[in-house]
């Protein structure tokens, strides 16, 4: 099973389980099923609860908030994550505040799903990793899918078991990637912490104690897994990899556990470097650990994402970049 199938299956399961689940988005009707096909089959199975919309990102997020306010569990698909900026006011000033402003009298069970990321040559307005601009919004949860464990259950928890607004990030390149079920992987030791939105800790199976802690989410967690293996086998650098599914607010508990041994932190993200996710991770960890942390971030260059392959490859982090940064930290 791949990530796309897991997410699509989860949406089907959610809509089957509760009649209060509604799905809105652009071009989501069958046979198309959305630009990345995550909605495939939904409109056929639940024609009354799957609504294809005009090209109105702010509007549909706003409608989703209104529906959620009235007790529906709403999923809004934003076709490309690059368009999420159009809904920034709806997210920051409405979705995230209404519960608090009402003294918890109203709730907003809304999941805004959107694919982010580059690697497909879609160019500057269709390849971005913009979630960094939505981290740290009081009242907003940001989740990110990986192949690890069960992205379908992550989505299900978000839709059915959470009454707060969620920005749900799916990296485009993950859709076709096979899942790494928790119990079946022989290459990694995998530890899970938390239920709804777990944090995972991986290390190469049978490796000695780590000297470095890497943390990454989304598609970069995939690359970090590859880097972890190559670091171990090619360079004898042994690292822990901590992969959160909830990237904001961020729970640094497991990370601190690992850092207690390594004192070395490498964050990896696809968003542009400055003011990215890694900044908060580093800051938190420094505050917690005091003067003993060595740290470094791997991220995209601070520029738009180009279309042409060689350029795009230069701007976005890759496995080599992670390995190199890790080795620099150890040496």
């Amino acid at each position: 099973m791949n990530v796309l199938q897991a997410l699509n299956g989860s949406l089907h399961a959610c809509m089957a389980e509760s009649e209060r689940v509604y799905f809105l988005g652009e071009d989501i009707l069958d046979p198309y099923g959305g630009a990345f096909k995550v909605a495939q089959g939904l409109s056929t199975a639940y024609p009354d609860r799957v609504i294809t919309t005009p090209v109105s990102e702010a509007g549909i997020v706003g409608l989703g908030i209104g529906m959620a306010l009235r007790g529906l569990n709403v999923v809004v698909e934003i076709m490309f994550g690059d368009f999420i900026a159009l809904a920034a006011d709806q997210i920051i000033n409405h979705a995230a505040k209404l519960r608090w402003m009402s003294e918890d009298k109203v709730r907003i069970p809304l999941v805004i799903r959107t694919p982010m990321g580059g690697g497909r040559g879609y160019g500057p307005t269709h390849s971005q990793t913009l979630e960094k601009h939505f981290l740290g919004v009081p009242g907003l949860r940001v989740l990110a899918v990986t192949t690890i464990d069960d992205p379908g259950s992550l989505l299900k928890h978000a839709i059915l078991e959470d009454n707060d607004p969620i920005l749900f990030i799916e990296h485009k390149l993950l859709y076709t990637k096979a899942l790494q079920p928790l119990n079946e992987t022989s290459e990694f030791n995998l530890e899970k912490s938390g239920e709804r939105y777990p944090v995972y800790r991986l290390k190469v199976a049978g490796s000695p104690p780590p000297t470095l802690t890497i943390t990454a989410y989304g598609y970069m967690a995939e690359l970090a897994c590859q880097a972890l293996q190559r670091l171990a086998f090619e360079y004898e650098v042994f690292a822990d990899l901590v992969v959160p599914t909830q990237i904001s607010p961020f729970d640094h508990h497991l990370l601190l556990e690992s850092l207690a041994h390594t004192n070395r932190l490498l964050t990896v993200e696809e968003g542009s470097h400055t003011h990215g996710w890694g900044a908060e991770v580093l800051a938190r960890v420094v505050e917690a650990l005091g003067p003993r942390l060595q740290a470094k971030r791997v991220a995209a260059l601070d520029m738009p994402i180009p279309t042409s392959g060689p350029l795009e490859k230069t701007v976005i982090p890759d496995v080599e970049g992670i390995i190199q940064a890790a080795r620099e930290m150890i040496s």
Partner: protein
Amino acid sequence: MTLESPPDDVTLYRQMLRIRRFEEKVLASFSSGIFYGTTHTYIGQEADAVGVLACHEEGDIVVSNHRCHGHFLAYGGSMHALAAELMGRATGVTGGRGGSQHVQWKDFYANGILGGTVPLAVGMALAEKSLNTGRVVFAFMGDGTLGEGVVYESLNMASLWSLPVLFVLENNRYAQTTPIQLHLAGEISDRFQAFAIPVAEAETVDVIEVFKLAQEAVVKVRTGEGPQALVLHTYRYGPHSKGDDTRDPEEVLKYRKRDPLQLQANRIDPDLCKRVEVEVETEVDEAFQRAQNDPLADPASLTLPLDPTP
């Protein structure tokens, strides 16, 4: 469902007067420093809120804006809780969190981002239609709010899906200090008709006329004819918020002469009118007094907007 007749003249008068006196007291008290933040008063527009919301039924939803006191009181909100909210008291509508423009109570929602609540209103209408509740959403906005793009995204979807929402456009001829001719091209009614939303329009401060137009429109909405728009040309007598009035005093005076309260008072026995006056003034005074004696909001009451643990 049939057209109902309007509430009796005295009730309508009293409701408008409650808004008027409340707002006058707010403006008069501002300099004394009892309030936090700012305010936007509804004086002059009372016929809109009272006339329109006389048509609302229990469970209907009202989506309001920065100028929400009139809507809130006409909806049935507590005058004391509103005063307390302005004063940042624990007993305020939202315990002092929201203040003047962020009022949420029962099915009433107000917010300070112009236009930002319009898609929420349409989404609520979509929910109510889906759940088949027969509820109607009343969405208030001002002429200036027609500057915001998300309003049009919302009108489009409301119309496409034939949703039970009444858009109430209060054209008081200004957006803050900007006269309508400097901010709006074309005709207001065309902005709705461009989305195939039927419009009823009136240049009036007669609460009964407003009620009748609203009731006709609400019946259509409630019986499934889809969204309707009501364009009410009105005027505010007070400044936009507190001291910021740049309008020609002559112009203000002209509109003050067609006062909705006076118009309605003329329909009522003068003695009765007086009695209502006294009662309302007492009510307002008591509301303010009580609010002022209430405890200020307690920082310990603050909660996080989100449970941070996964």
